[in-house]
């Protein structure tokens, strides 16, 4: 401890977190909230947390879907499909993630053309070294309401499905969820959009000077990070799903076949629900791994939390505080994820026993 204090004193670094209030003085290339270089370190770090969060949510969502497909394909009776999935898994698992990230980033910056000669596969969509550019709808107050009713509709649909399930358990009557879902998710938001003036003007990316303006942009850093993380984690998730499906005994397959269920029905209604019990615990650690691995973003310059904390550390010299912050934030992410996943796991386990 005395060593540390002497060393800090020599480099004239004040310990403590008071630096958080100071002006950060660096730009962050992409941010979900308003941030300027003269904002505080606190806000800069918060932008980093939001970016990490964004990557974690989208990345895990895509990686789990990819994993489910790959795991099912891996067990397909079709030789070609199964072998292709296997090769993908082996290839993605046995190459370091950081190398894969560098690779995808290099593909973007070296193979895709300069902004001036952007690829233009569909009108309004541009691909270049600077990223993907899409058109989006021009800002209008009604879009906010459309989105809110859409999300509310999703919750309502979920509630209805629970209610219909209860109803079926009580009366044995099976009612389709489809009309309710269509109503809540599409009809209501579309009506709101229509009566709100039906805004349909597009904000199309325009080439001006050195880059596009307008529309929506996915930066090469973000796309490369997503590609790398999803491809890497998808392979591990695929193996987990495969192991889960294989853990369900053959008798279940045969029994469902005897009942006249198709292969797809068997998988969806009989095997997957049972395999969830085996899948969820290792999947939890994979979800956590993806969150932790997203910290490699610092290697290709995506401004995630570690990247911002690293810049902060270099500028202020507050090494101990920065490392503590990094550890604290990731611990928070890890603990809250395991909390959610454990709850989900418990719900699956209970159903198992009740059945």
């Amino acid at each position: 401890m005395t060593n540390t204090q002497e060393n800090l004193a020599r480099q004239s670094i004040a310990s403590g977190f008071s630096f958080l209030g100071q002006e950060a003085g660096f730009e962050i290339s992409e941010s979900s909230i308003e941030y300027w270089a003269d904002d505080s370190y606190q806000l800069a770090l918060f932008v980093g947390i939001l970016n990490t969060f964004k990557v974690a949510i989208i990345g895990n969502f895509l990686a789990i879907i990819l994993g489910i497909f790959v795991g099912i394909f891996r067990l397909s009776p079709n030789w070609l499909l199964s072998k292709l999935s296997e090769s993908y898994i082996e290839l993605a698992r046995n190459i370091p993630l950081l190398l894969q990230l560098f690779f995808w980033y290099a593909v973007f910056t070296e193979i895709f053309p300069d902004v001036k000669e952007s690829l233009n596969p569909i009108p309004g969509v541009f691909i270049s070294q600077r990223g993907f550019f899409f058109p989006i709808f021009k800002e209008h107050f009604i879009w906010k309401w459309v989105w809110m009713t859409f999300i509310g509709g999703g919750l309502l649909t979920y509630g209805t499905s629970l209610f219909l399930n209860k109803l079926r358990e009580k009366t044995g009557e099976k009612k389709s969820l489809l009309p309710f879902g269509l109503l809540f998710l599409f009809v209501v938001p579309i009506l709101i959009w229509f009566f709100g003036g039906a805004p349909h003007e597009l904000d199309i990316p325009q080439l001006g000077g050195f880059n596009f303006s307008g529309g929506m942009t996915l930066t090469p850093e973000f796309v490369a990070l997503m590609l790398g993380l999803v491809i890497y984690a998808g392979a591990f998730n695929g193996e987990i799903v495969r192991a889960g499906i294989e853990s369900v005994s053959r008798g279940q397959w045969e029994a469902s076949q005897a009942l006249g269920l198709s292969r797809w029905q068997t998988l969806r209604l009989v095997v997957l629900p049972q395999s969830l019990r085996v899948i969820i615990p290792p999947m939890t650690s994979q979800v956590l791994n993806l969150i932790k691995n997203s910290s490699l973003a610092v290697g290709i310059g995506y401004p995630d939390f570690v990247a911002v904390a690293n810049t902060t550390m270099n500028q202020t010299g507050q090494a101990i505080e920065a490392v503590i912050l990094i550890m604290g934030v990731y611990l928070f992410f890890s603990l809250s994820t395991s909390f959610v996943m454990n709850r989900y796991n418990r719900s699956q386990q209970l159903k198992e026993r009740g059945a």
Partner: protein
Amino acid sequence: MNLKYTKNPEKRSLPLMQGLAVWMKKNLFSTPLNSAISLVLLGLLFKALGPLFYWLVVNSTWEGTAQTCRHNDGACLVFIKEKFVFILFGFYPRELLWRPVVAISLFIGLCLYSRDVKRWNKLLLWRWLKLILLCAFLLKGGLFGFEAVSMDRWGGLPLTLILAFIGLIFSYPIGILLALARTGSLPLIKALSVSYIELIRGVPMISLLFMASVMFPLFMPDGIVLPKLLRAQIAIIMFMSAYMAEVVRGGLAAVDKGQYEAADALGLMYWQKMLKVILPQALKIVIPPTVNTAIGMFKDTSLVVIIALSDLLMTTKTSLKDPKWLGFSVEAYLFAALIYFIFCFSMSRYSKRLEQVFSYGGRS
């Protein structure tokens, strides 16, 4: 009696073309849906592999300079030819290159020799110890007229192998100790071990490497500077020990309760019980996941790039900075990926084989 088991006797008797047709009918075109999937996949494969083939083989450049490469569309293999020594060995003095080459060959040779489970004994352990000393001497030099090479000139594949291998041989025993502490009955030690393991497993490895590169120097007494390589190595060991501990804990839990009780009944002390009865069984059970953790560690050594240590990935990145050879990243990364893949894939195959060995009569 000479009975030979063949899996599918009638299939053997078919002529080749007919056999192929039967196989295709069964595996690719069994149902209309399957046929459709197969055709779509074949189409996609053709679409993807065609350009790849053209890029890598037909249009690739094997001779010439960067200019020739830029002129051609294909892969620039001249770049790899030019740079592979640097990618593999970093800034190691060119005239002494035979030393890391010999060290790596010996290392890989002994790895291959140790593949067979039957050869696992004390003698092998001694051989490994001798090998480590020999390799360290070869890389470092400074004795018997061998020119000394300073640690910051080590790089490329040897550095990656050192980080992974030294990481493994230290994190394994530390992991065992942590696992014993976690499953033991001493509350304070148990709490310490649990918090260490969960803390480390909850944070990304990068944060540990940052800690090693920027925090360790602050903790050191005046005048003592640990080389960066050593600090990174300590971070890797700290990180991997936590993961090893969880693997070993799985093994400890998998050993039959009766074994613990029998050892207690014989009046063995705690350490006798663990060293002579429980650990030999527990460690054997978890050999396959241990190898998997080792693969993970091998891949994770690449993270030292972030703190600018010249491991294999870093030398690859550095080779791209050469102003004469700008713009061949894809070739360089594919080359590095191939090396990593060869190592990781053979380890994972080996882990699969060990799994079989230990599940069928590996108890002897």
